[in-house]
């Protein structure tokens, strides 16, 4: 026990707390996105971030987290903007446009990150950790930054939750009663881009979508109330993030991202099977009970 406690430094604890805050905020933001039926909106943004990370490094020569994440956020917004342009100016349909932005922007990111060492940027090592996430390199200062971003995102969601819920469930009514539907949609997508970027150091560009998709989908099984779902989704994100960070700390060189996603998937699987009313087991029991009572009434016989 004491040996284990000795290994857990102040830095590790702060990093775990920062990543936990990001997990919570991503779960909260993600539930708005999933309710609006735009679960994969963040994936194009996520794959575009790598270009931003590389460009921020190229432009400033700095590798600190703030610089790289600002670049990633700009690139995420450019990626989402490309989607809007494709929709507006070409007849490529939404699904192909999304896949196109994912593939091409990720390819450009890989090209830049792989090329940097050969182009004379010898100190660019470490950028590829944004692919699958790696919390070991984070400092306490980085963690405070992530926590601050997460706090801002949660505050914005708290401020627009009522309006966003209305838009998610009945956008036609919201538009008819004068709510700025597209403004609220842009705000939600902007928040998703922000959380994708905040999740980048811990989960990585390839898998960070899971951070905004899996917790809300899992939380949905437990409740029919939006407020409960948002909080529960945040808590699931938090637990998954902490579990992933802890698991990756057990072996050096283990990427954090896949472990966070697997932790979230375990919570999802438990929710899918065990949740009352909406869970698979509860539904099965309900169905067979209904059948049994029908048989006992003698209405339906074998």
């Amino acid at each position, binding site marked *: 026990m004491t040996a284990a406690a000795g290994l857990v430094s102040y830095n590790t604890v702060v990093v775990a707390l920062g990543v936990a805050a990001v997990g919570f905020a991503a779960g909260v933001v993600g539930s708005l996105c*999933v309710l609006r*039926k*735009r*679960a*994969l909106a963040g*994936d194009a943004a996520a*794959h575009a971030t790598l270009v931003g990370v590389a460009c921020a490094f190229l432009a400033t020569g700095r590798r600190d987290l703030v610089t790289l994440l600002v670049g990633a956020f700009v690139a995420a917004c450019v990626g989402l903007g490309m989607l809007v342009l*494709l929709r507006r*100016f*070409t*007849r*490529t*349909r939404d*699904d*192909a*446009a*999304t*896949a*196109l932005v*994912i*593939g*091409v*922007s*990720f*390819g*450009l*990111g*890989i*090209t*830049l990150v*792989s*090329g940097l*060492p*050969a*182009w004379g940027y010898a100190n660019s090592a470490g950028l590829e950790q944004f*692919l*699958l996430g790696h919390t070991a390199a984070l400092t306490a200062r980085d963690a405070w930054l992530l926590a601050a971003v997460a706090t801002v995102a949660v505050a914005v969601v708290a401020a627009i939750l009522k309006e966003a819920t209305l838009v998610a469930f009945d956008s036609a009514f919201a538009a008819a009663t004068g709510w700025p539907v597209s403004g609220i949609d842009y705000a939600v997508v902007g928040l998703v881009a922000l959380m994708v970027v905040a999740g980048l150091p811990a989960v990585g560009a*390839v*898998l960070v*979508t*899971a951070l905004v*998709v*899996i917790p809300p*989908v899992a939380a949905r*099984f437990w409740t029919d109330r939006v407020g409960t779902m948002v909080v529960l989704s945040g808590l699931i994100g938090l637990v998954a993030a902490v579990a992933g960070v802890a698991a990756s700390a057990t072996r050096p060189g*283990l*990427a954090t*991202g*896949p*472990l966070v*996603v*697997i932790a*979230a*998937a375990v919570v*999802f699987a438990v929710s*899918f099977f065990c949740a009352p009313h*909406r869970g*698979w087991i509860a*539904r099965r029991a309900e169905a067979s009970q209904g059948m049994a009572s029908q048989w006992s009434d003698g209405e339906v016989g074998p």
Partner: protein
Amino acid sequence: MTSWLQLGEAGVGLGGIHAWAMATAAVIAASCGLVGTLLVVRRMSLVGDAISHAVLPGIAVAVLAGGRPGGPLVFLGAVAAAMLTVWLTQGLRAAGGLAEDAGAGVVFTTLFAIGVVLVGLAPPGTHLDAACVLYGELAFLPFDTISIAGYAVPRSFVAGTTVLAGLVAAVVATWKLQVFTAFDPAGARAAGLPVVGVTAGLLAATAVATVASFDAVGAVLVVAMLVAPAAAAELLTRRLHRMVMVAMALGAVAACVGYLAAWRLHTSAAGMIAVVLGLEYAAAAAIAPDDGLAARVIARVRLAWRVAREDRLATVWRAEESGNRSGARPHTPHEAMVARWLELTGHLLRDGSSWRLSPAGRREAENVVRSHRLWEAWLGRHADLPLDHLHPPAEWVEHHLGAEMRERLEADMDERAADPHGREIPPEA
């Protein structure tokens, strides 16, 4: 990047190596273009994205079980993983009421995460690591050869060519079925065709094309090879068989160009191929024949120019009609430029500081003014608009009425050949 340096140190004949690498990349890109076109026209691009991620655990399990990359066991594992993805996504929708994109988002991220962890467990020397998953190792593939009729041929090229041949044969054999299912799935089902089987076959083909590409470009960039050439081809043509051929050609060209560019720039070949595919799509969006950006801009500029010409001619005509010659004078530099152009084409003649119409210009101007006044007359009779509201719509529509329409409008008028302002309507020139 280290791989290029190591290639140089290996001291192999570089020309042959590059040719083999490009040939390999081209055949797998062609396979992806073929499968991708069917995915794109059936609006299943994101299924392609999900499958290209989700095959990873299948590949990893097959390799851990002793299969070699590009071998039959690995193909089997990948197809199984792809089927698992689709089955799980549909199961989540049926049993949990999950929207399809949310379900896919859960399933493919989870499977990919499991795959990455499994790859981390693979013993060293099994040719499978995290970098390979993300970038592929196109540059190394030509070194792993097998002997065919005495020639050393890269194993991945043989696998890629086999896959391409198989996919082409399957698509050609089921062509009519593919077209029917792609454009009218409900009709195909009603006609008793095996739509579910075609869809399952397409998913399996996606998995096979992904595995064939996996060694070369990694799991994530396959989605670019699946979707980008197909989306570009869809902009360039509207016939499915041309779309398939254009997509395959675009994929193969991008593979070669991307490989060479990556070699020159010392960077990832897979990433560069995706970038070239993106550029191809951008070029297609720019030059597409009917609704490409260039076609739209040209159509707009031509319309604007025609309107400017016709307005200038009509202005000079009206000035001559009213006898106020100074009215024919251009007021803005743009109008002056249009007038000078019309002088060059023989429609206007210079008259001191002003202009007058040549016979050719008069003919054209009379038709414009005729359109304008006929439209005013028609609106005055039928639209119940006040007199001062007739001019603006006529000013707009005068450029779009043909001779036939003018005839019909004239037939609709009473005998008086004048517009509601009492001005004479010139006869058809």
